[in-house]
């Protein structure tokens, strides 16, 4: 009797809870609109939207290589399965042509689709929520003036319970801190501008902050380093592995040109980021650089410049020493150090050559790839190289996937770590090689960022499109 009554009360409580949940979680559909004519938007607003879209790297997830711009359909791998990016062209059937500005802003701020369904945080709305009303308006103007493309994204391949969109209501309760951005009065205007862009639209933390078991960024470990498309996204806080510490100037150059003399060339997903930032006004990039540089000094531990790097930062010194080094490497080879012999034969020609960055290879003592937390990025670069930018002058590196076997790769990585960093040996090199070769680690290989001075064609095209 008692048991029955208990079960009855339990059921009522459960039903009530479900009701409350449904009520709280329910989001209304916003009526579809007829796509507004492209001529109805202020060209200046569209232009600003183009710059903002570049800061947000919308392209990288919403345009597959060789596909039509913003048609979506790119698989975003997550630990819970693949989420496919959607069509964000103004096509009324398969894109966002039927979305009013209010619907667009709700998606950005709350992660809710026009029809009221929850979006997945593969679309980083926990960052985009910070975007201001004015910038959302510009982004909307930009996207709604793109060429409409009829292309439906494939269905997501998520496992239960992640395939239930309503579950994102719970996720949002835990991890979404709705914006817009509120200025931190302890810091100046440039820092705040940078924080707004880097933590908001730029969503730097999406790759550079580690994630918890529910796929949310660990706010206590902000910028402590993460993972993206088979690459290690380095820590950008006090734990940054860069042998020469970053500062606002070097970050600005790196983000704006795609390379920086003391840190090297952007590759992997970061090459795409740098390529996009090329089209963004200097002051926005400088603000991001200022904010990010400040993150790296936060611990107050006063990170030291690696003595090895300090000693070798002047390239002239390296060049002078190169031939002696190669002699040393050859005798090392004779004594059986395979890694040293490979470095001398395959790497030193460019990495100790007389050409300057970015056409000469970086002095490896300066490379975060060698001083980083694992061998993944080094292995990725040696295997696949740095493919040239399309139709523009750019840095290059050939890949060695077909000429080096696993044993040679491991020997090379071990040697480079010992010789060019002051950190202890990596203990997972074999595994890193195996994962890349077997595609267990799916590595995205991006084109090198184009050299700014000689890439007018690409830049011009972007501008033309923005004004169309």
């Amino acid at each position, binding site marked *: 009797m008692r048991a029955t009554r208990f079960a009855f009360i339990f059921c009522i409580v459960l039903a009530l809870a479900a009701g409350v949940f449904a009520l709280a979680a329910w989001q209304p559909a916003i009526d579809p609109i007829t796509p507004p004519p492209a001529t109805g938007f202020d060209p200046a607003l569209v232009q600003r939207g183009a710059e903002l879209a570049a800061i947000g790297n919308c392209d990288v997830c919403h345009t597959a290589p060789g596909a039509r711009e913003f048609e979506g359909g790119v698989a975003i791998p997550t630990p819970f399965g693949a989420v496919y990016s959607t069509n964000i062209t103004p096509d009324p059937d398969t894109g966002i042509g039927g979305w009013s500005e209010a619907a667009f802003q709700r998606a950005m701020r709350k992660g809710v689709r026009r029809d009221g369904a929850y979006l997945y945080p593969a679309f980083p709305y926990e960052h985009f929520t910070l975007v201001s009303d004015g910038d959302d308006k510009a982004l909307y103007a930009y996207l709604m003036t793109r060429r409409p493309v009829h292309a439906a994204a494939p269905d997501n391949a998520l496992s239960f319970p992640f395939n239930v969109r309503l579950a994102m209501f719970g996720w949002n309760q835990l991890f979404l801190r709705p914006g817009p951005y509120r200025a931190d009065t302890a810091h100046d205007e440039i820092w705040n501008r940078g924080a707004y862009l880097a933590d908001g639209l730029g969503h730097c933390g999406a790759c550079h902050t580690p994630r918890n078991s529910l796929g949310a960024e660990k706010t206590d470990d902000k910028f402590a380093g993460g993972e993206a498309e088979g690459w290690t996204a380095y820590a950008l806080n006090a734990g940054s592995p860069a042998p020469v510490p970053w500062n606002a100037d070097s970050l600005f150059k790196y983000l704006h040109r795609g390379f920086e003399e003391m840190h090297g060339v952007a590759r992997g997903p970061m090459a795409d980021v740098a390529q996009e930032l090329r089209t963004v006004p200097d002051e926005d990039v400088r603000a991001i650089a200022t904010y990010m540089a400040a993150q790296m000094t936060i611990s107050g531990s006063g990170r030291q410049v690696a003595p090895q790097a300090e000693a070798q930062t002047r390239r002239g010194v390296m060049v002078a020493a190169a031939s002696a080094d*190669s002699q040393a490497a050859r005798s090392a*080879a004779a004594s059986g150090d395979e890694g040293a*012999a490979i470095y001398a*034969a*395959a790497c030193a020609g460019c990495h100790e050559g007389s050409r300057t960055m970015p056409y000469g290879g970086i002095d490896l003592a300066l490379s975060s790839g060698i001083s980083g937390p694992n061998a993944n990025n080094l292995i990725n670069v040696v295997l696949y190289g740095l493919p040239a930018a399309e139709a523009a002058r750019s840095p*290059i590196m*050939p890949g060695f*996937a077909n000429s*080096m076997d696993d044993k040679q790769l491991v020997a090379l990585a071990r040697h480079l770590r010992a010789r060019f960093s002051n950190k202890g040996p990596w203990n997972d090199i074999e595994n890193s090689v195996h994962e890349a070769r077997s595609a267990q680690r799916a590595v995205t290989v991006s084109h090198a960022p184009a050299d700014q001075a000689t890439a007018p064609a690409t830049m011009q095209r972007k501008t033309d499109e923005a004004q169309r």
Partner: protein
Amino acid sequence: MKLNVNNAQHDVDADPRTPLLYVLRDDLKLNAAKFGCGLGQCGACTVLVNGEPVFSCVTPVALLAGKEITTLEGLGTAENPAPIQRAFIEAQAAQCGYCIPGMMMRAQALLQKNPHADDAEIRAWLEPNLCRCGTHMRILHAVHRAQEMMKPAQPGDAG
């Protein structure tokens, strides 16, 4: 050092940093592979290492001990051309011809691994190799022709 080129062992007296291309052309007198850009960007120097295409201009011989190197000369001769060579001749797929040995070697690697590659796969696979004469359509035609010639006999095929 010892190099295995076209199924023959060669004793080569070269600095281990020497690019394979120089050893092939200067020491072994195998001149099919061409020097194009010297940066691994054009594909004219393509040869096979253990069946995979490599740019021999940026591959130091130090990496190649114990590996099987195949050049165009290793596939067939003028008197007795291999299917890929016959196909390129029949399709008249050369204009100036400088890129053609590299094209044939890269295509050979694909057809060995994936005899049923479709047109899209062939195009994507050949992308690293450049042709400045614009002979691409004939090159593609030749690769398809070679694919027909190289098709493994199907079970049930007569004779």
